[in-house]
């Protein structure tokens, strides 16, 4: 399995599994609330349906409105492709370490927020303004988690972190625990999951993510939906890679170890989907203005993680 093939496999794997993960989450949420819910493959069917539909855009939409979906999707797809999922060493991963990854996600969000503002409707404004607030607090929290790992392990490149955590027994560390909780909170906020935003409804009081892509239709909407699905997968594989890297094909992957890697990775996805669905059904949505404090706790946890790093290890 030479390098290029590996990377291509990673790209395809990410693209195919993303809608599946979202479908799984929706299915389990429906089941938990006593409904049959749509099939696992429903998201695939939605995407294909949208792709075939005719795209209708507002008169005063600019070139930015038409180009933003592609930019968002590409940025997130590339970011997802850089995270080691089933194999540790990917040819493209040295081009961007963890900090660059966060920035790529930022690029995707930047494009989506601008698209929201382009048409000049109230809902686009609501979505972008709240998205910016969430980002302004989530990004520093994420960077603090990265500081914790980097200060602990001395590197910010993903393959090395995964390799190091998978091989050596780092032991139960308080700062890693805090980092995990902070990263989970950030993931929930970034992917507009329940406590921060409700992906299912179009209620203008609550929606953040949906408001931005309100004006899209047809293939552009498909791109945006695909982007958010890839983003969910990205965060899940990031958490898996940083905090549960076992079962990954280390060093030079052979066909067998790659297969095992993929199987373990899919298992992790399913587990994460179930946990997420369970979490979402057990908690109500927060008022938008309490999201600030929610994310401030994530920022605080990140900072505590760094502080404990010094205290416990006496570094």
């Amino acid at each position: 399995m030479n390098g290029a093939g590996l990377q291509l496999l990673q790209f395809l794997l990410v693209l195919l599994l993303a809608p599946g993960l979202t479908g799984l989450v929706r299915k389990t949420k429906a089941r938990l609330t006593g409904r049959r819910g749509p099939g696992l493959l429903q998201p695939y069917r939605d995407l294909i349906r949208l792709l075939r539909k005719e795209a209708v855009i507002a008169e005063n939409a600019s070139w930015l409105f038409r180009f933003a979906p592609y930019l968002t999707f590409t940025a997130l797809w590339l970011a997802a492709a850089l995270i080691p999922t089933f194999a540790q060493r990917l040819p493209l991963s040295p081009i961007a370490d963890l900090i660059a990854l966060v920035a790529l996600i930022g690029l995707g969000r930047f494009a989506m927020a601008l698209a929201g503002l382009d048409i000049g409707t109230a809902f686009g404004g609501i979505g972008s303004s709240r998205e910016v607030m969430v980002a302004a607090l989530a990004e520093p929290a994420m960077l603090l988690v990265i500081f914790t790992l980097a200060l602990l392990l001395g590197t910010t490149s993903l393959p090395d972190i995964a390799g190091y955590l998978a091989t050596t027994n780092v032991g139960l560390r308080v700062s890693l625990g805090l980092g995990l909780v902070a990263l989970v909170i950030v993931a929930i906020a970034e992917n507009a999951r329940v406590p921060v935003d409700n992906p299912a409804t179009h209620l203008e009081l609550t929606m953040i993510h949906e408001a931005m892509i309100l004006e899209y239709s047809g293939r552009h909407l498909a791109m945006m939906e695909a982007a958010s699905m890839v983003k969910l997968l990205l965060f899940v594989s990031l958490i898996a890679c940083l905090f549960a890297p076992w079962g990954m094909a280390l060093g030079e992957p052979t066909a067998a170890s790659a297969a095992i890697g993929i199987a373990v990775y899919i298992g992790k996805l399913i587990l994460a989907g179930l946990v997420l669905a369970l979490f979402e059904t057990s908690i109500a949505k927060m008022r938008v203005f309490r999201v600030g404090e929610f994310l401030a706790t994530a920022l605080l946890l990140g900072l505590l993680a760094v502080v404990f790093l010094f205290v416990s290890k006496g570094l």
Partner: protein
Amino acid sequence: MGVAVARGRAGHLFIYPISFLASAAIALTAGASLLHPPIDAPSAILPIGLPWLEAHFRIDALSAYFLVVVNILAAIVAIFAVGYGRHEEEPHRVLPIYPVFVAGMNLVLLSDDAFSFLVAWEFMSLSSWLLVLATQREPGTSQAAAAYVYLVMAAIGGIALLLAFGVLAGVAGDYSFAAIRTASRGQAATAAAILLTLLGAGSKAGLVPLHAWLPLAHPAAPSHVSALMSGAMTKVALYAILRVLFDLTVGAPGEPSGGAGWWPGLILIFLGGLSAVMGALYALLESDLKKLLAYSTVENVGIVALGLGLALVFRASGLAGLATLALGAALLHAFNHALLKGLLFCGAGAVIEATGERDIERLGGLIRRLPATSACFLIGAAGLSALPPLNGFVSEWLTFQAILGGTQLSLWELKFAVVVAGAVLALAAALAAAVFLRAFGIGFLGRPRSAAAAVAIEGAPSMRVALCLFAALCFLLGAVPLLVLRLADPVSQRLFAQPLALSAGSTWLWLVPFSTGVSSYSGVVLLAALVGLAFVVILAVHHFAGRRLRRGPAWDCGFPDPRPETQYSASSFAQPLRRVFGTSLFRVREHVDMAAPGEMAASRLLVVTRDLAWDWLYRPIAFAVDGLASRLNLLQFLTIRRYLSLMFMALALLLIVVAVLQ
């Protein structure tokens, strides 16, 4: 260097091309002298200045680097100004002074002794003061007040620097930098000199407690001048900090623990971090486009100061490798900020020339009216929000890498301070993204909120050429940061007698601060990957889903309302963040007076934000001076008898003193 001060009646077509050629020439010579440095840096001696100490002018690596930064910016701004100058109402007020301003900045960088340094420094402030006053309408308006506050702050900064050089020159009074470097002086004197320099240069750069004049003065100047003031003059101020803290007070170059230890670094880190966050937050609450950019200058100067502080701390604790990395990051960010801020201010200038409006609340929908300017402004905004393919991200990434190197510091407090600085920098970067997203989104997208915005037309071709040149440079440096690092290498050689650790491992493709294992970044591959992938996706989608497109009224959940007022405005966009940060930091007060039910009166929202520095630092001083002046004023209105008794008492006092001393 000495650009001819032509009383430009011939108008802008004559002055700006010449200044463009001059700046370009200087940039090239400086760049050349950096890449293959001459053996002994040429030292030009001019017979002007102090009688017994001619003015020394010398190009060494540090001044050459900043010469490149200032003059590339000045060259491109000159191209922009050719078009922008056309509509100037009183060209004769701006034209002759513009080249003098650029010459002043170059002179500051070139001077090699305290006296000519200060002459050039005050010269720069004087010429920019005249430029700020150039396009003023009524003296009473804020323009005159802004210019006044600016000049007084410049004078305070100038005198602080003067005292710093006085302390450095010591009793002997030999002001040439060479003598200052070799002169030995006590720890207290070095400390005093460093503090005075931080006060003087810090106020000119706009570090937080002393920044209040910057958002008043920079927007008041014509746009191409404020581009120069924000882009280049703040860099000259940072050059002053670098020259004194890194070069003059260090004693023999390269000696690790020379100078004053790590506390100046800590102060710089603290000031830098504070400026970064406060700058971004102020910018968030500002709706005047040029003021917003001025506040973002405060933020970015804070980031560079943070980098310099890190370099000082690392060098004081003997980690030379990390020190060169932090210095490299700071220099790179200075270069990037100069280009990006130049681009944004010129963009703002184009917008103002097209619409005559400065407040983004009254702009909107410009992306359709001014496509080229909006595209370049978008690139600038993305750059300053530190988004990957562009150069803004590269320097911020390097600063983060330097911070992560903080673990090797010995002192516990330093380690903790460095990490807190990292957290502050992360918060500032995120807020900057919010600021520029708001500025571009409200200003350029959506529906035009005023008649002027609706009929805006693109400016002169030269303006667009300049903007595109800026954007191209940003992309180039984002992809291949090595170009600037090659320039920065001799600087770290000069200051730390160590090559830039960064450039050892990096090639034009990869950027490797420590080792590939630790962290690496490749601008080129990332850019190529993004563009390639996007191209593939578009092709696939268009092939699979077809290219059919239909235009229709905006959906807006079913009740389209064409009136632009329904759009989000700048203050409503910042409202969530204002609610999170504003109440505590700026004592934000929001009064909403709703019309009584049934009444048709429009309800008003009034947001009052107060600039803390102005309340706690500037206003008390002004009141104290005013109070003292009125109390002393009584002395003017005494009668002759009282004056005589005054004289009598003075005589009696002196006589008593003499009698006592006898």
